[in-house]
């Protein structure tokens, strides 16, 4: 095909295309709803949710993943443009991680040494890992569909941001069920689950976000 012919065909295809960001919120909201519904049906909300939210160290298990998810989502969206830069998203995520590590260390120092292993292991780490990974699936699908429409120059990094976003929101949803309130538990296992989802996102990104 001559370049001239290609140009003729493309010129006839002039019309507005929605920006990649426009589709993100509705699709993400829908996926979030699906995951919340899945959590409600399979696990249910912890009975003492209201009381738990008033304890700062416990509330952190909602706040930290949520912040992480928002930063990662913004990062993914910025990178979806060829001339986009992630900006302050990286430092923001580092700050969230730093707060988490501080909570973890403080909890580690206050728990008696003979109870340390038990506090980390908790009673529900299997459910925790599987649930966070499972609830991340609808979110990951929504994010990949939106990002495929973009034009990231760094498909692996974009995919990792998407995974971090999906994992963060998923941990936020799972926290509503989970009654393990020690940072020794949630900082270890939530982080591990989110990390796995992030890696999955990076692998998916390498395949799906090329153009």
């Amino acid at each position: 095909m001559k370049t001239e012919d290609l140009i003729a065909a493309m010129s006839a295809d002039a019309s507005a295309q929605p920006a990649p960001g426009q589709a993100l919120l509705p699709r993400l909201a829908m996926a979030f709803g699906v995951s919340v519904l899945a959590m409600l049906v399979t696990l249910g909300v912890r009975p003492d949710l209201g009381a738990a939210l008033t304890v700062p160290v416990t509330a952190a298990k909602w706040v930290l993943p949520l912040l992480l998810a928002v930063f990662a989502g913004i990062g993914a969206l910025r990178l979806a443009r060829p001339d986009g830069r992630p900006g302050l998203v990286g430092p923001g995520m580092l700050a969230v991680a730093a707060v988490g590590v501080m909570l973890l260390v403080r909890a580690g120092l206050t728990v008696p040494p003979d109870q340390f292993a038990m506090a980390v292991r908790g009673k529900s780490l299997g459910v925790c890992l599987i649930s966070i990974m499972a609830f991340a699936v609808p979110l990951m699908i929504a994010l990949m569909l939106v990002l495929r429409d973009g034009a990231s120059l760094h498909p692996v990094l974009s995919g990792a941001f998407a995974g971090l976003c999906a994992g963060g929101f998923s941990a936020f949803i799972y926290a509503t069920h989970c009654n393990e309130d020690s940072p020794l538990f949630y900082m270890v296992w939530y982080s591990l689950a989110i990390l796995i989802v992030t890696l999955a996102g990076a692998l998916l990104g390498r395949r799906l976000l090329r153009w």
Partner: protein
Amino acid sequence: MAKLDREEEWAMLLRAADTGDCAAYRRFWDQVSPVLRGIVRARAGGLGADACEDILQEVLLAVHLKRHTWQQDKPLSPWLYAIARHKVVDAFRKRGRSVQLPIEDFAEVLPAAPGPDPFESHDAARLIERLDERSAEVLKGMALAGEDSAAIGRRLKMSDGAVRVALHRALKRLAVLRESEEG
């Protein structure tokens, strides 16, 4: 100064294209494609003239299909250059060669006249045949026979909207096929 004016005009034409103005979009391509060709030649000249034209077509298709990722209030050149650079690097990668491209802008690039047609004869025909029938017909009519959408609509008994949808889908599919062809 001239560079700024040129950039402003390109941006204006591309914004007009977003409102469905095909004539403005055509002018956009007539102005931008020689410059992009110059960039591709400057970076990938070593791969040969027909490879350059091939890469240029990938750049043009990418600009077309990803134009919604340009923010209309941002400068257009960095966005265009990022896409061109990405596709040139990709072309080297596909051919098993690595390349270091300096980050530059359009300043010193001279527009270039068309080169030999890369795969006028065999490749394009083969790719088009892998599209579904309607998309192939619309693309052939539009690109090769120079028909307008109304004429194609009458011939294929499709509404104007359906022709446009088919054309858009065909171009998208073409980009995917080209990407996977050379893998």
